[in-house]
């Protein structure tokens, strides 16, 4: 396995190196870097300007010599200067963070949500949910990214800000949202028509009541969950995860372990209040690690010999989920104060962050989220559709395999058939898809950043192309191509992890 990865890595790096040469040659021929200087009135000023650029970009030397110059200094970490003499390293430093944030957020969210929807859609093949998901996937897949991004920026951001000034939901909006939620819940239920209708009615009424109450109490202007809702969500999470991993049984050790994890989480939410007022990223990471460790111990102790595996699983998922709920609660609580800081318009349409923003950990978190939300949403739509479609197709193919029939013939409950046999096999082809998709997302990021006016990697690339300047283009390629190589590696490792047949070769 290690040898396999090492060999793949070696080949990838060689291929990447060859690709830099190809891109450099193209980038060096993409335009005329002297175009601007040529516009100057003829005379010594123009000549010296042209001479300066020629000297800086070594335009009098052959392309290959220039490439090896670039390669030599790039290997030492110096990416050169652009046509006006600014350091590329400095430009990249500002740009790379926000772009990678956008790309990673969009990719991770698309993978998680896309796979989830794809699996559900496959399990409910030909249901109303499946048909709607399939159609929506087709529609999203066919949307031009720049068009959607512009629409989101123009309407969602502005209208949402306007609405947040006086956040009250009209009755028909409540009804519409509740209708969608109820339809989704009903589609998830297995069973006859009656249980579906019951689910639908219950979900619809509950959702209407909830939204109406939230709207009336002005919750949307000053949101937050409160300890009661946190506790409720944590317990619901415990029940949900345990049911998923080992079936619904109130007195089983996994259920007890999950409940213990949930209670521990709720207690720590109360106890850690002083720490959570204004933490930093390291504290949050440390808390997450501690949570995982404590929950592992809970599962190990309460699971006993017979249930150790599933108890640890349920406890850890419940604990981390509870942590996420507490985190969300803190973010929501800071919303009102953040909104005040932004003059009542919290959803941003321009740039990747408010310049010189000062605030607590939670407020800066909201600031990043506010800037990231819409570009990420736009960038996600297409990837999401891809993951949903491929996961659905892959799951359908796997569920028809003989070994899934064998699993059923063993007398395994359907839940275990899906989670233990179908899912793992169904995800194998998806790993390869991740590697392909990242390139598309990198390209999409250029478009999205342009629409939302980010000064990030996309700007670097477009300026480079428009000015006929290879250096920024190469910087873009180092990051984008590097991301593709890294994702290919991750995909290979994941593949090897999921499929033992690969480990041998």
């Amino acid at each position, binding site marked *: 396995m290690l040898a396999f990865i090492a060999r793949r890595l070696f080949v990838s790096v060689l291929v990447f190196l060859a690709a830099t040469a190809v891109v450099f040659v193209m980038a060096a021929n993409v335009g005329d870097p002297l175009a601007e200087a040529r516009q100057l009135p003829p005379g010594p000023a123009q000549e010296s300007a042209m001479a300066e650029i020629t000297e800086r970009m070594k335009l009098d030397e052959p392309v290959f010599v220039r490439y090896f110059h670039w390669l030599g200094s790039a290997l030492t970490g110096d990416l050169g200067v652009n046509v006006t003499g600014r350091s590329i390293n400095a430009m990249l430093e500002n740009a790379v963070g926000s772009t990678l944030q956008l790309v990673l957020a969009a990719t991770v969210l698309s993978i998680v949500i896309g796979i989830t929807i794809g699996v559900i859609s496959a399990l409910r093949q030909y249901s109303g949910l499946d048909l709607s998901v399939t159609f929506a996937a087709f529609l999203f897949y066919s949307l031009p990214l720049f068009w959607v991004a512009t629409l989101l920026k123009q309407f969602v951001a502005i209208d949402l800000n306007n609405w947040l000034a006086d956040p009250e939901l009209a009755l028909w909006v409540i009804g519409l949202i509740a209708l969608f939620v109820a339809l989704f819940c009903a589609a998830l239920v297995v069973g006859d028509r009656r249980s579906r209708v019951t689910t639908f009615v219950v979900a619809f009424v509950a959702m209407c009541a909830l939204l109406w109450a939230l709207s009336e109490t002005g919750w949307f202007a000053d949101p937050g969950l409160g300890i009661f809702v946190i506790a409720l969500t944590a317990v619901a999470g415990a029940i949900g995860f345990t049911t998923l991993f080992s079936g619904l049984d109130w007195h089983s050790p996994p259920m007890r372990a999950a409940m213990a994890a949930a209670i521990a989480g709720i207690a720590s939410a109360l106890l850690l209040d002083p720490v959570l007022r204004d933490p930093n990223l390291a504290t949050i990471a440390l808390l997450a690690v501690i949570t995982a460790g404590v929950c592992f111990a809970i599962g190990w102790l309460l699971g006993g010999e017979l249930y150790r595996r599933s108890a640890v699983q349920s406890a850890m998922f419940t604990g981390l989920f509870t942590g996420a709920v507490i985190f969300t609660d803190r973010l929501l609580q800071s919303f009102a104060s953040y909104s005040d800081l932004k003059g009542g318009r919290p959803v941003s349409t321009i740039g990747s962050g408010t310049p010189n923003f000062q605030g607590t950990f939670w407020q800066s978190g909201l600031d990043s989220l506010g800037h990231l939300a819409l570009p990420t949403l736009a960038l996600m739509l297409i990837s999401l559709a891809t993951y949903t479609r491929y996961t659905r197709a892959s799951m359908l193919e796997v569920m028809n395999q*003989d070994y899934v029939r*064998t699993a059923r*013939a*063993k*007398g*395994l409950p359907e839940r*275990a058939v899906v989670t233990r046999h179908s899912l793992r*096999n169904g995800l194998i082809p998806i790993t390869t898809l991740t590697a392909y998709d990242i390139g598309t997302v990198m390209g999409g990021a250029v478009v999205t950043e342009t629409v939302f006016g980010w000064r990030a990697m996309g700007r670097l690339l477009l300026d480079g192309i428009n000015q006929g300047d290879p250096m920024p283009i190469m910087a873009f390629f180092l990051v984008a191509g590097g991301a593709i190589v890294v994702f290919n590696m991750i995909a290979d490792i994941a593949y090897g992890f999921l499929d033992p*047949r690969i480990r041998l070769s």
Partner: protein
Amino acid sequence: MSTNTEPANGSRVHAGKTLADSLPPSDEEILRVEDLTVEFPTDDGIVHAVRGVDYSVREREVLGIVGESGSGKSVSSMAIMGLLPGNARVHGSIRYRGTDLLRMREKEHRSLRGDKIAMIFQDPMTSLNPVQTIGDQLAEAVLSHHLVSRKQALARAKEMLDLVGIPRPEARLKSYPHEFSGGMRQRVMIAMAIINDPDLIIADEPTTALDVTVQAQILEKLLEVKDEVNAAILMITHDLGVIAGMAHRVLVMYAGRPVEIGNVDVVFNQPRMPYMAGLLGSLPHLDATEHERLRPIVGTPPSLINVPPGCPFSPRCPLADDSACVTTEPELAPVDADEHYAACHHWSRLAQVDDPTAYFRAESERSR
């Protein structure tokens, strides 16, 4: 362990365990299938895959079911397992020790599946999950029916691998299916089927996908483990040689219906349904004269979408006439021997000749 490597031809040679050595069946009935019908709605119309099947299996008995593809033999066994696709419409009753499986709740049916009723599938190459170890897959079968620890389940798995003749079972628990040969994988499938001491093992063409030399070994192993766990076997095959070698009774299916049932010796020596006679006649004989040709049954079975009235075999039958055979479908009725039933209007004409297969020789000669 047997090391039989001789190629088996026609009738099988068993150097190891044979049916005669194994424990005899008791009178206790464990499975009774009554008037079972299975239909599938399709784009072209409703497929009547199984059209009224009745049979029973006794304790420790090996019942062979023969028929060509599409005769309903696999579909009816999948109905017993409750593994038919969701769009299948199943009617009739399947009683396991008195309880009707078709009227059970899914949860109860599942608790029987893999525990009291186990199944071995046709293609061992695809029937094991490629991404899980053999040990995990075997242990899972134990864990889904018994409250034991993983360690105990793995110990049981090792015991079973040993029983089905897999060398170094301890080490093999950690192997993946792709590290096994086809024959070895089928042994693993047998181990999985018997791991919970079932009453009934359904073997759906367990040797079709294997080498001829391995086939005999697998069949012997099956007879051996059957006595080990005291199980009955429902042996589904299209290979008459397999039936002759290892079944007590045989059920012949054609176009979704049973057309002949009886003790293997009786049915093989005195077939009373022309289809079975034709099948027997189409087998190659070792003692055949040099110039004797194979004698196929001419034609194909009818479509199961528009089943024509009359005997479904009549278009291919040398005995068919224009009256009863094309108007009424014959019922399964007792014929000359004990516990021997056949569905043919003209079974008595077969009883009048020494070699009923002779009809088919004439038929294929005519078609030349």
